[in-house]
């Protein structure tokens, strides 16, 4: 307790030097919490949007389906197992048929993926109800990214060429019924959504599908031959991994600030021990053990972290609360990198994040404060009182 009181008095007594260190360290606190909060917010939004727009509660994949190999799409289709029929009727499972195709927007050739989906589905946020139109052409909906890349807009016609189940070429016109705004590139980039019935007819694959999106809380228990179940954790694994990598990348900024703060504290400690040799000698002469003096100086250094947490809270809480409210606007084009990203990311600051940051910074500061203080244990008290350089 004495050590704490003394440490506090010494620190405050050091004046501007202490407050400069505390301020820099408080910036490190705020930045660590901000960047991690931003990543957590992004992760939460990306996960939520992917669930809402693409994966629901999980998916059954036809055994040959590989989303990373478009060449496999034409071979990865099977008849929908009868065990799912009742769930499909109840709207708890949505079958999707996926096919490779080629479109010719403005006479340019472009490979795309055609996705056939039930127009009455309500599991995914895709506006498939808009496909319920009676027109001569095949109705299609596309995402804003694909619209931008191909220059296709609402009511535009585009020729699509595909091969049916027998490998025979066929071609037709697709009319773009609407362009939807979605943060999930994997349901947007390079693909056109059309009614499932139409695609099944085009491909000559009646009652067949490539994936079955599960909107039900539970998966079908029995093993389904030819189909593999993929749960949410598997389906969002890529997002989690990418955001984890981004988190490590963004830590670069606050590691620099933290390093600067630690360097300042280290320097302060070295300077204190050098300038306060007589004080150290007096402590020992008055009966304090060397260990107690080391503890005193270590606590003094570590107290920077406590003061920085308080200072950081004074200006950090209002700033971070404001940022959490207005969010972080993502620059134009950042969402083209294939990862779910909203126009504005709202950082999420959890109690866990704040507590773990405080503990982490406190521990690092204590270690950095202790390292120079070790020198005290080697000091001769008589020489120290005389102020001899040791």
């Amino acid at each position, binding site marked *: 307790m004495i050590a704490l009181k003394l440490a506090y008095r010494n620190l405050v007594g050091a004046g501007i030097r202490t407050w400069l260190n505390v301020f820099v360290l408080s910036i490190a606190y705020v930045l660590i919490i901000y960047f991690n909060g931003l990543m957590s917010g992004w992760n939460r939004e990306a996960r939520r949007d992917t669930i809402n727009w693409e994966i629901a509660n999980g998916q059954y994949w036809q055994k040959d389906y590989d989303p990373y190999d478009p060449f496999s799409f034409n071979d990865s289709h099977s008849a929908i197992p009868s065990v799912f029929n009742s769930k499909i009727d109840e709207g708890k499972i949505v079958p999707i048929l996926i096919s490779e195709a080629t479109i*010719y927007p403005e006479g340019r050739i472009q490979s795309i993926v055609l996705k056939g989906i039930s127009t009455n589905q309500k599991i995914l946020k895709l506006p498939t109800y808009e496909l319920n139109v009676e027109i001569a052409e095949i109705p299609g909906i596309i995402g804003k990214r694909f619209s931008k890349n191909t220059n296709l807009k609402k009511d535009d016609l585009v020729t699509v060429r595909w091969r049916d189940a027998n490998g025979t*070429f*066929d071609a037709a016109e697709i009319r773009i019924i609407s362009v939807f705004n979605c943060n999930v590139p994997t349901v947007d980039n390079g693909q056109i959504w059309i009614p499932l019935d139409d695609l099944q007819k085009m491909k000559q694959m009646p009652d067949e599908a490539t994936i079955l999106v599960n909107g039900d809380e539970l998966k079908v228990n029995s093993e389904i031959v030819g189909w593999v179940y993929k749960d949410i954790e598997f389906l969002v694994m890529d997002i989690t991994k990418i955001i984890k990598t981004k988190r490590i990348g963004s830590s670069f900024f606050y590691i620099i600030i933290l390093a600067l703060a630690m360097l300042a504290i280290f320097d302060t400690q070295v300077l204190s021990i050098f300038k306060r040799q007589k004080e150290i000698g007096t402590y020992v002469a008055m009966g304090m053990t060397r260990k107690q003096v080391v503890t005193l100086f270590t606590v003094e250094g570590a107290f920077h972290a406590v003061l920085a947490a308080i200072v950081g809270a004074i200006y950090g809480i209002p700033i971070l609360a404001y940022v959490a409210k207005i969010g972080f606007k993502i620059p134009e084009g950042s969402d083209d990198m294939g990862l779910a990203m909203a126009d504005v990311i709202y950082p999420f600051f959890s109690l866990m994040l704040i507590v773990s940051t405080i503990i982490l910074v406190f521990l690092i500061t204590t270690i950095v404060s202790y390292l120079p203080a070790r020198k005290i244990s080697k000091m001769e008290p008589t020489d120290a009182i005389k102020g001899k350089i040791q």
Partner: protein
Amino acid sequence: MKNALLVLFLIGSMFVQAQNPTGKEILDRIDKNMASKSQIVTSKMIIHGQRSSRTIEAKTWSIGENKAFTEYLAPAREKGTKMLKLEDELWIFSPSTDRIIKISGHMLRQSVMGSDLSYEDMMENSNLIEKYDAVVTGTESINDRNCWVVELQAKTADVAYQIRKIWVDKDKYIPLREELYAKSGTLLKKTDFFEITKIGNRWYPKKIVFKDMLKKGDGTEFIIDEILFEQAIDEYIFTKAALK
């Protein structure tokens, strides 16, 4: 009198029928004119893009329909690339990677060096009689030549193009135009044959223009600089060892 007129009409009809060959006969005549046991062709492929054109030079050795070996001679970027076709299999050797790659499955549907031709188009066996029912639907003039218009309908469902139309020169029995249609009837590809030249005892086009009809652009020109028929070709050339 009536009977005499009927007999005259029947004889006349028979005469007209004898003058109009059937679709199968026309395809047979084309085959006889163009097919050879072996060929060595030096050619240029001019690929017209939206902004610029590229010219690729190649030399091809082939025996019948099932064996072909092509070596690209120019430009420098493609020089040394070799392609081997055996039956329905295709391998490519790229000197930059020093590897032999087998082109199979869906990769066969990719464009050959950015041209309007796919590997599959190149691999296609020209024996159309086996796959199609041919019917002569009329006569038309192409490049001031009188042509039979032959419509081909696939016999089975597993044929890439269900409908084809071929315009065949009535005198030379060589196609001057071919159109490939989707099942729905949409025109997908068009091939025009120019500079029909007498080479030995056969007529042969020295310039062929391939065009993907859904795509903008001037298509891909295939120009034959030299073609030699019935040449002795070493069998070694049609092995994977010859690719490297």
